[in-house]
């Protein structure tokens, strides 16, 4: 460990092709881990292909939800370098808002045309609610800390997360609540591979949303403002961009995506709990880091990968099983930080003086 004492920037871009023994160890051990992973997948695929694909698709379903939540983390991090701990709890409030709209307000408990209508209304309300709430949080809690040392907004985010959990606790009660879904409960069976209709619905909602987001960020004026602000706030301000409004807009979009994820989680999994946001938030955040934090495509890729790995681990016959699910996710996180801190699609950034 004392070998790289003199070079604080050893994570920076690779130097000349000269092979550093330390580098080599990293590469070899990283390769071995990937090889082990491939072996594990191969054995399971060979053992029972139908089960393999069933659990993989089920995992991807969760992965799509993680991706939606991870986008909120990654956009906020990209623009103000804040790990927004409260984001998972925003998602949690989204699940509760959806349950409130669909079951309490509209009284829909089974698949029907009215049920789908309630679903659509809940989608709009939940997205607006979470987006608005996130904008409000940014305005009142984070904005004045923008120039403070990094620890301050991070602690604030933890505080906001607690306050949101308090709201959830009083809205939902301390236990888990089960809800009836308005989505159809049918399943396809293709050569033994079972696909739930809900999985199809999740993808049917998620993919257009991601396309709209991509369009918004890459093609619109507001998106260009977002990218400019992420790159350099002061320069963006000099170019006449309203930085405050752009950041608020980013929070709003992130919150809205979390709201949509909340609705789908509540309808597909059918339960709400006040501490849900904490668990899923951590997983979603891991997804964002896996893909390369600040990178939108990376967040989606990371979310799908984490969902896939989790699904495979929980469902396969040669897996560690569900009780180790969380450990598997965080082991991935730690290994990633050791071997590729910038994430799968991220770029290494050299520290500047």
């Amino acid at each position, binding site marked *: *460990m004392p070998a790289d*004492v003199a070079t604080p920037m050893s994570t920076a871009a690779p130097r000349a092709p000269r092979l550093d023994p330390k580098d080599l160890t990293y590469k070899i051990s990283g390769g071995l881990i990937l090889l082990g992973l491939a072996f594990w997948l191969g054995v399971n695929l060979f053992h029972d292909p139908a089960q393999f694909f069933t659990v993989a698709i089920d995992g991807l379903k969760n992965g799509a939800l993680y991706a939606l939540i991870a986008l909120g983390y990654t956009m906020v991090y990209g623009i103000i370098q804040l*790990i927004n701990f409260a984001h998972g709890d925003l998602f949690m409030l989204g699940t509760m808002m959806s349950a409130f709209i669909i079951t309490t307000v509209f009284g829909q408990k089974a698949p029907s045309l009215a049920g789908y209508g309630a679903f659509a209304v809940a989608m709009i309300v939940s997205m607006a609610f979470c987006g608005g709430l996130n904008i409000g949080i940014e305005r009142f809690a984070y904005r004045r800390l923008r120039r403070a040392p990094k620890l301050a907004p991070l*602690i604030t985010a933890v*505080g*906001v997360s607690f306050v949101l959990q308090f709201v959830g606790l009083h809205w939902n009660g301390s236990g888990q609540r089960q809800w009836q879904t308005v989505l159809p409960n049918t399943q396809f069976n293709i050569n033994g591979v079972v696909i739930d209709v809900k999985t199809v619905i999740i993808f049917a909602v998620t993919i257009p949303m991601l396309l709209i987001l991509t369009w918004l960020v890459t093609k619109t004026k507001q998106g260009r403002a977002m990218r400019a602000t992420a790159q350099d706030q002061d320069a963006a301000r000099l170019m006449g961009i309203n930085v405050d409004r752009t950041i608020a807009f980013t929070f709003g979009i992130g919150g809205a995506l979390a709201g949509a994820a909340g609705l789908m989680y509540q309808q597909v999994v059918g339960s709400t709990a006040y501490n849900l946001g904490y668990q899923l938030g951590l997983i979603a955040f891991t997804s964002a880091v896996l893909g390369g934090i600040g990178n939108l495509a990376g967040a989606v890729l990371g979310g799908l990968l984490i969902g896939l790995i989790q699904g495979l681990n929980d469902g396969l016959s040669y897996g560690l099983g569900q009780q180790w699910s969380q450990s598997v996710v965080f082991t991935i996180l*730690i290994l990633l930080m050791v071997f590729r801190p910038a994430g799968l699609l991220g770029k290494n950034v050299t520290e500047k003086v």
Partner: protein
Amino acid sequence: MTGHKAIEDRSNRRWAIGFTAVAVFLFVLYHWIVPNGPSWLHDFVQGWFSNANTNEMIVYIIMALGLNVVVGYAGLLDLGFVAFWAIGGYVAGWLMSSFLGNFKINIFGNPAPGLEMGIHVTFWWVLLAAGGFCAIWGIIIGAPTLRLKSDYLALVTLGFGEIIPQVFINGQDINGFNLSNGNQGITPIDPIRFFGFRNLGPFDLDYKFVIYAVICAGMVMVSLRLRQGRLGRAWLAIREDELAASMMGVPLMRTKLAAYAVGAFSGGLGGVVFATHINGIFAERFNFSISILILAMVVLGGMGNVWGVMVGAIVLSWINGIGLQQFGNTVNGAFNTNIDFPSFNFLIFGSLLILMMMFRREGFIPEARVRLVMHEHEDDNEEVH
């Protein structure tokens, strides 16, 4: 510089006297005054400042001081401190109970009659063993990750803090080996031998308080001495500007690892002390909110300032442990209401964190340098820096 030194020495002596005075007062209070005093005093003390809560406070002070070395001195964010607490607790479980029943080892140990199987090591050695074991874990987790940027480091520690408790929760059957007895936990823990004349069972809270206070004093002393020494100055340099510190010849990795190891060591101490305090180890107690609670103690008390951190630990562990509930009972009794006050814990902690970060970022009792750093860019909102 010499004048400075003299002031520090004098304050060193002062705190030792003050600490001893408070500890003696509390011992006398719990040992003689409360049992022999009037019943209203007994009710008041047991309700608002119970002996068990005081001991728990000391556990939190020990750990908060350890985390203060990592977060306050060296400026490294650690969101998984609970892992070290858990590891320390389980070391106590392995070395001070009949849990590992395949062995029959006794090293100055003090097993309860009938529980001679297992490993029994004397409390003081277990303290060292647990601290050392945690320090090794701190280095294992720190070595590959400390070169990362602070945000990433926070994440790795967060992941570590999630994995370790899950290992212990699922640990009753790891390939047939029972590591931790799962959710049932390990209990009972051997009684501590109190300076050779008494075995401290679960109810000897007042004597245990003395032992814990001694450990706590040791932790305070180590914190203060480290802060003044070469290592402490190196930590501060890293905290303020890592790049500049390395240019001045501060070995970054070694210095950061030292901070990590010291923090982990104290987490291990806290684990052993807590295990002997509640006479067992229970895996479900070790969760993320504890990491946050300890971090909040450090930040709200005043990062880098030993006294601030102690105040933070005392106040927050009091609110968390006994204060809020007792306050709720009093209010409910007085106004005949039925409000569930402990459920407001989230709101109180959350708003406390938010408001403190808005209005008093540097903590209740700040360190002068932290205050400057925390308000560095307060006035240049429109300036490019």
